[in-house]
């Protein structure tokens, strides 16, 4: 039934709808650069969403855990084989994404008889110098974008834009600031997603919801406090100052506690 071009286009369109629907309750992911490297942040319930890929590469994802695992393994295999056969510095995010996983994701997306990957991926890369730090975001259809100071994943592009808009107004130097901005940005995204769900609105209609020009930080913390009852804050760093070649480290609860407003921290344990 998909032999005709029109049917195929229609099938792919259906697929988008299906994937948007699957992702609408996903948890946003935030990545920001700060003075010592890159911070990735999300909220998780049970399964982790942030991972180490290579010496200077970290991954954050949303979507189906099994699909995310599969792509994570693809990335890990490619990165380690390349790092061994060539050198550590030849393992770059952009090569892994452009020639590695996006063709796979695109193919799965377009082969309408097979199951697509229900994922969105954010790959963070710590450059040799701070100005080379960067992010790559990959959508479920295999399209990807490169970003430099910050990047986000959320259920819809409208929510992502909202989060990026919020990030644009912030300034980040220290890790403490990065954590603070990241959790607030996450709240901006999560709130927008939830209100879209409650309104029962379609996918891109969130765009039409009037933007509050100034989003009140207190309101965001209130939202976070509510979320924290059922989820935990997950943070990972690519820290230029970590000794040895592997720069990835998870931000432990103890450390995180010192960086959050006090009323957010107790529920971390």
């Amino acid at each position, binding site marked *: 039934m998909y032999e005709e071009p029109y049917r195929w286009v229609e099938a792919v369109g259906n697929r988008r709808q299906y994937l948007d629907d699957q992702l609408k309750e996903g948890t946003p992911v935030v990545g920001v650069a700060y003075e010592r490297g890159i911070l990735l942040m999300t909220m998780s319930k049970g399964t982790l969403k942030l991972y180490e890929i290579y010496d200077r590469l970290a991954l954050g994802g949303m979507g189906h855990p099994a699909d995310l695992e599969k792509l994570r*393994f693809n990335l890990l295999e490619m990165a380690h*084989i390349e790092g061994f056969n060539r050198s550590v510095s030849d393992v770059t995010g952009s090569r892994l994404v452009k020639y590695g996983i996006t063709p796979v994701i695109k193919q799965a997306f377009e082969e309408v008889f097979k199951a697509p990957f229900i994922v969105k991926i954010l790959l963070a890369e710590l450059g040799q110098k701070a100005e080379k730090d960067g992010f790559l975001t990959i959508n479920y259809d295999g399209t990807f974008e490169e970003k430099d100071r910050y990047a986000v994943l959320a259920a819809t592009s409208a929510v992502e834009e909202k989060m990026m808009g919020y990030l644009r107004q912030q300034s980040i130097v220290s890790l403490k600031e990065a954590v603070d901005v990241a959790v607030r940005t996450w709240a901006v995204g999560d709130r927008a997603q939830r209100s879209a769900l409650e309104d029962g609105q379609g996918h891109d209609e969130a765009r039409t919801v009037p933007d509050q020009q100034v989003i009140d930080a207190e309101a965001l913390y209130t939202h976070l406090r509510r979320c924290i009852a059922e989820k935990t804050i997950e943070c990972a760093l690519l820290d230029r100052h970590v000794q*040895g070649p592997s720069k990835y480290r998870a931000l432990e609860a103890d450390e995180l506690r010192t960086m959050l407003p006090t009323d957010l921290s107790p529920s971390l344990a």
Partner: protein
Amino acid sequence: MGLQGDFYQLLKEQGYVLGSSGQAGTGQELTTATTILAFKYCDGVLVAGDRRATAGNMVMYDRTDKVLEIDRYSVMAIAGVPATAYEMARILEHSFKYYRRTQLQELSFEGKLRALSKLLKENVAAALAGTGAVVPIFAGYDTGQEAAKIYFYDILGAEFEGVEYAVSGSGSSTIRGILHYLNTWGGQPLSAMPEEQATIQALRLLTSAAEFDSATGGVNREAGLYPIIKFITGSGVRMMPDLQLRALFESRVSRSA
């Protein structure tokens, strides 16, 4: 096979072969021209190696690092054919990283030992052909058991635990006796020595090895060349800087002072 987190298996699936198989049993003499040693001291384990690389009678290189950091808590000191040894170190380094990143937990210390043992076993043909013999020492800090550990291997891949110390290489026979003597009648056992004391002993041991073994490079003060000495403790691997080695050598090892 990625699900098993086995990087070496993954490499082999890509057609990788470690070393050349060569013709087994051509009867060449197995030379391991070097001296490496490891012993436990009060904070953890000290691993040291001279820096000379030889080809027959010729000194090829005087700045070799034979004490290779594999990850934050383990070190492999190498004696034997450097090409194969470095290759093994690279495989191990990637294997441990790959395991940690895929399985989201560190490979156990036993697992690390087995990984090296497997590589040595696969390398037996090249070792017997005389082109790839490696006789390493693997030392590290077992974070699970919170204990420093030393293991040494034969070229066939059998692993043995060096409870107090281990030595390998052509200069090892000279210092093995000294280590035994020091540890038994030296006033205090090696494992009770503080870091500085342990470093002085390591420098003296390598200097003694160089005295009797032409393939072991001692200290070359004119060129500012000192052995490589690394410590592995609960907080990871650390290398003793040349400046400190120099001061200790001048004050506590050199007889011309």
